[in-house]
């Protein structure tokens, strides 16, 4: 009786752990399948001509350069707008705020903002910036809408980064007579910088891959935007339209691969900064 139970126990254990392994393998398998499929079908497209020339012809033959320029432009602008605000907001939450109603409201708002579906953010950008403030379809309108999307993301990673800085470092600073801001700006923020940058880079990856927000704020016109008031079509929007039209699939695969590579590059950079920082601390 007892021995049978023991057998059952170990057998169950083995089966269950096997199932958990399967879950992990399925997860990695899903990523592998997507990456492999996009790489195999897109790699033939990735020529300098594809990356650096303009699309032309009946179905967007040729390159995708204007979409790359539009993507980089709107991503950088959105990061420039949102990063200072998000970092300072995180400084407030991590260093200054005392638990209370106001902080609760701010946190609830940040969580809500983080969970707003991107399509809703897109319509908000359309109503507020494109039409409400009369910016028209433009890089600026898209960057502002993206800024709201990214704000809670960067706030959270920055706050975590600041909280990860050991308390005693602050005490040392105060002990030397430094003020709060001196401590924050010269001691805490520099120590948290690598993790903050990591968060910002990952957020930039999110911005670069965002479709629903930019399609309603930047439009779909093929254009290499120079001024922030000009419209443009980003790579994700280009991919969406190519896929929906369904005629020039090679270009769609090329765009998809380039997008995935961009996200990979963002991810690896972030990872590199974290690991280099860890090495330096350790």
């Amino acid at each position: 009786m007892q021995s049978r139970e023991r057998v059952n126990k170990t057998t169950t254990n083995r089966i269950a752990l096997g199932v958990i392994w399967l879950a992990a393998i399925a997860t990695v398998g899903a990523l592998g399948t997507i990456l492999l499929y996009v790489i195999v079908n897109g790699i033939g497209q990735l020529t300098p001509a594809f990356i650096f020339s303009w699309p032309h012809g009946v179905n967007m033959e040729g390159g995708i350069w204007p979409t790359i320029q539009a993507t980089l432009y709107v991503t950088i602008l959105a990061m420039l707008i949102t990063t200072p605000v998000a970092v300072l907001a995180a400084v407030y939450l991590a260093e200054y705020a005392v638990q209370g109603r106001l902080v609760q409201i701010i946190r609830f708002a940040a969580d809500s903002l983080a969970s707003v579906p991107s399509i809703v953010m897109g319509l908000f950008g359309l109503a507020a910036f494109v039409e409400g403030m009369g910016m028209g379809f433009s890089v600026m309108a898209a960057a502002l809408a993206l800024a709201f999307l990214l704000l809670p993301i960067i706030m959270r990673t920055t706050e975590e980064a600041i909280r990860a800085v050991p308390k005693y470092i602050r005490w040392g600073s105060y002990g030397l007579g430094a003020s709060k801001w001196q401590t924050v700006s010269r001691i805490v923020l520099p120590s948290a910088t690598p993790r903050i940058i990591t968060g910002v880079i990952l957020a930039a990856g999110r911005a670069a891959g965002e479709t629903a927000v930019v399609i309603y704020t930047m439009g779909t016109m093929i254009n290499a935007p120079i001024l922030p008031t000009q419209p443009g079509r980003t790579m994700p929007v280009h991919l969406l339209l190519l896929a929906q039209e369904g005629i020039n699939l090679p270009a769609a695969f090329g765009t998809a691969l380039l997008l995935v590579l961009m996200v990979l590059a963002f991810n690896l950079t972030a990872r590199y900064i974290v690991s280099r920082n860890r090495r330096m601390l350790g």
Partner: protein
Amino acid sequence: MGPMSLRRSAARVLVLAVVLPAMLVSGCSSRAGAAKTELTVTGSTTILPIAEVAAEMFHEQHADLRVLVAGVGSSAGIESVTKGTSDIGTSSRDLKPEEKSLGLVDTPIAFDAIAVIVNPSNPVRALTTKQAADIFEGKITNWKDVGGSDQLIWLVNRDEASGTREAFSKIVLGGAPFDPKSAVLPGTGQVRSVVADSATSVGYISLGFVDKSVKAVSIDGIQPTEKTVADGTYPVSRVLHFFTKGKPSGLAKQYVDFVLSSAVQSKVVRDAGFLPVAEGRK
């Protein structure tokens, strides 16, 4: 040392982020300035290939002039030319009664036929207009009722922004509603590839996009060909329009004339599978 180098790299990132857009601005500002060198053409996705390739050829001949073309659907095109957000609105449908008073001037630029397509393995080769209507209204739901095998019919429809859908609805269904259970796809190529994959499906696309992967059935005994479209015997065909606010003038007139020239009519229009206006019906 560590924090220093990190701060420096952070600064470098920031400098890049500021300088890059600035470089883009200064590098290309010559093109951004003057207003009358740009013509905006928006509207029908059916006309998109013609308008776009013509725009490229036009740009090659007049390097200082640029025509920006976007495919947003006929209705949106008519709306945007009316509002003045674009110079030419392209449409694959006629004006609705309420649009007739907007002061738009029509320039027909090509003829198009809409083919009903089925999977090549489908034994059905011919339908009457009535049968086609009943199929798309959901009254006939099995292929055996129109001489095929005993299988359910899967409908592939276009989105309501599509001029092709609007023309098909008007000519074939007489304005009766489509079966709401039909799949709604936003692009011609997608309809074609879905019908090519699914043995029991039926859809409709412009004759210009029919290729070997799908089979166009005859309607009322008439196979859709260039000849039957040109002589008016194929029942499901329509005129493609350019609409301008008032008579085309200036840059708009230059572009419209170019599209009507034989360089575009006998090459681009034909390449896209449409029929030139000069040779078509009156």
